[in-house]
């Protein structure tokens, strides 16, 4: 029983990370039709700058953890908005070229991070509480899982509120459904593009700082390794669907944990298998619109 609880909560924690990456990917794809390969780089840069911030302020305090999260969110948002404004926008409506540009950016930035911070992982520290465990029904759960889950839920609620109650949110929801009709109502939908990139980048940035606590280190490969699973989550959940991304994040991560434990470390393979099955049965994903 305690093993099941541990696997479940660890799975939820990992799912929280997947969601923080996949939510932005899904929104960006839903609105713009762009698959963003550079999303992992937003995350990695945020993780590094977040860690630099925490280290400068003294890594053990809660203040520096929240400062790191703030720096991570801002870093991700600015990096993402800049990417949209300077690279993606020049290739308006040319989706393949847009994907290619993000591929180039991902390759170039990961190499640059290698050059700046070195290829080896840098081990990090946080407030003492995060390294401790809490006992739930006999399972000793590492505390950082709770932080991950709580922050991911806050981000989910934040994005939902933003989409529901702001003008930009209205434009984004309409644009996901029918982008050209939004422009035909006299709205410059490109401004919404920059906004979704910034939101997605901020979520990924927060995810980067949290991922460094979950794994215990930062490395230039951090974003890329999470990105592949976030892609899978996005496709399983249905491209463009936020609830789909949330549900699929949890399903994928929990499946991964259980398969790793009970089926001899086959978690990654089971996830790919799940993807194949979902696509065979529902090619548009769990919450995707049928096209």
């Amino acid at each position, binding site marked *: 029983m305690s093993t099941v609880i541990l696997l479940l909560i660890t799975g939820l924690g990992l799912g929280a990370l997947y969601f923080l990456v996949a939510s932005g990917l899904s929104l960006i794809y839903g609105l713009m039709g762009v698959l963003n390969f550079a999303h992992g780089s937003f995350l990695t840069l945020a993780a590094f700058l977040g860690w630099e911030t925490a280290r400068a302020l003294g890594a053990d305090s809660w203040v520096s953890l929240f400062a790191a999260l703030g720096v991570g969110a801002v870093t991700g948002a600015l990096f993402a908005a800049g990417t949209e404004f300077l690279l993606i926008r020049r290739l308006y409506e040319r989706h393949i*070229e847009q994907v290619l540009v993000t591929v180039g950016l991902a*390759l170039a930035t990961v190499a640059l991070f*290698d050059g*700046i911070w070195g290829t080896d992982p840098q081990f990090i520290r946080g407030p003492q509480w995060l390294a401790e465990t809490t006992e739930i029904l006999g399972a000793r759960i590492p505390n950082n899982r709770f932080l991950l889950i709580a922050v991911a839920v806050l981000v989910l609620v934040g994005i939902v509120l933003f989409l529901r109650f702001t003008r930009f949110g209205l434009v984004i929801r309409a644009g996901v459904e029918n982008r050209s009709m939004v422009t035909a109502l006299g709205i410059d939908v490109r401004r919404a593009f920059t906004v979704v990139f910034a939101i997605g980048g901020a979520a990924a940035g927060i995810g980067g700082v949290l991922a460094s606590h979950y794994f215990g280190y930062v490395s230039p490969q951090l974003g*890329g390794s999470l990105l592949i699973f976030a*892609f899978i989550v*996005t*496709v399983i959940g249905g491209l463009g669907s936020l609830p789909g991304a949330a549900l699929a994040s949890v399903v994928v991560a929990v499946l991964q944990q259980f398969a790793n434990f009970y089926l001899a470390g086959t978690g990654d393979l089971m996830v790919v298998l799940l993807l194949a099955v979902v696509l065979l049965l529902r090619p548009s994903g769990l919450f995707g619109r049928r096209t």
Partner: protein
Amino acid sequence: MSTIRTTLGRLVARPLVKWLLGGALVAFVAVLPLIDLVVPGVLPGSTYTPGTLQLLALSLIFAALALSYHVLFGITGLLSFGHALYFAVGAYGLGVILERTGLSLLPAIGLTLVGALVVATLLGAVSLRVSGISFAMVTLAFAQAGSVLIRRNPDVTGGEEGLGLATEQVPDFLVGVVDTRNLFWVALAVLVLVFLAVRWFERSRAGHVAAAVRENELRVRVLGLPPFPAKLVAFVIGSVLAAISGMLYLLLQSGVTPRAVSADFTLTILVIVVLGGVGSRWGAVIGAVVYTLLDQRLTALAGSDAIAGLPPVLRVPLSEPLFILGTLFILVVLFLPGGIVGLAGRVARRRTAEDARDRLEETT
């Protein structure tokens, strides 16, 4: 002068002349190991030295691999993010069979080809149920699964360390460092065959349907042509050709590492094809040669004293070849649609236009 140029241009366009030029180019590349050609700044040493031949052979293998990706992306419009998987199937498949079964090289190659054919047909049939970005994701996921399998089974694949070539199974003339030139010739021959195979596919009926699918899948359906078989054929041909490149890579490098199945490696193939010019066979070949040489030169540059002496702001980016290549790639996508071949085409067209003007001026 201008009339000579136009005559030349018209001559090049004729099929027989094309074949002769192609043959001459192949013949020239084939004699490189026998002559002492030094190209400072481009090649690390004279063309007969094993190190340089190794690099050139590698660029030929990447050219064949890029051509195989051209079948998917350039002809059929399938943006796959898992092409490295089939390269790895070739390299690892051949490596494992040689090590485990004691078969000699040719039967082992045959067996690997059959394996690649089966894997490509199965995975292709599943992946092609979706299209566009979902297809890209699924192929990425399958390649990721392949990568996990290879890394997690070290007793079969050598894990992170990689797999060495079981040299006792391989004919002697393909093994030693002094025999690099034999491998170079094999690589050249394979590249020529791959090139001709791709050319044949492009001109076949299935190739035409595949190209029509790229332009407008809906219209192909409306015309009553099922797009799925054409796409699957293209996928399988591209994958098997990639596996052939992978086998050659194993022989040349005397081994293979899990990097061959990584997402980064697929992205490298994509970069090569886009750099050379999407949709062009020669683009794939030129892109591969340029990329391989550039990568080697930039790596050499990164380790040079000139770079070490620079301030960090310049030193850090310049000592990362992939940073420079990635940036170059972004610039090509933004400003050079059609890649190197597209640029050459534009320059040629401008020349022809100038010639036409010259002639007009001469006659008036």
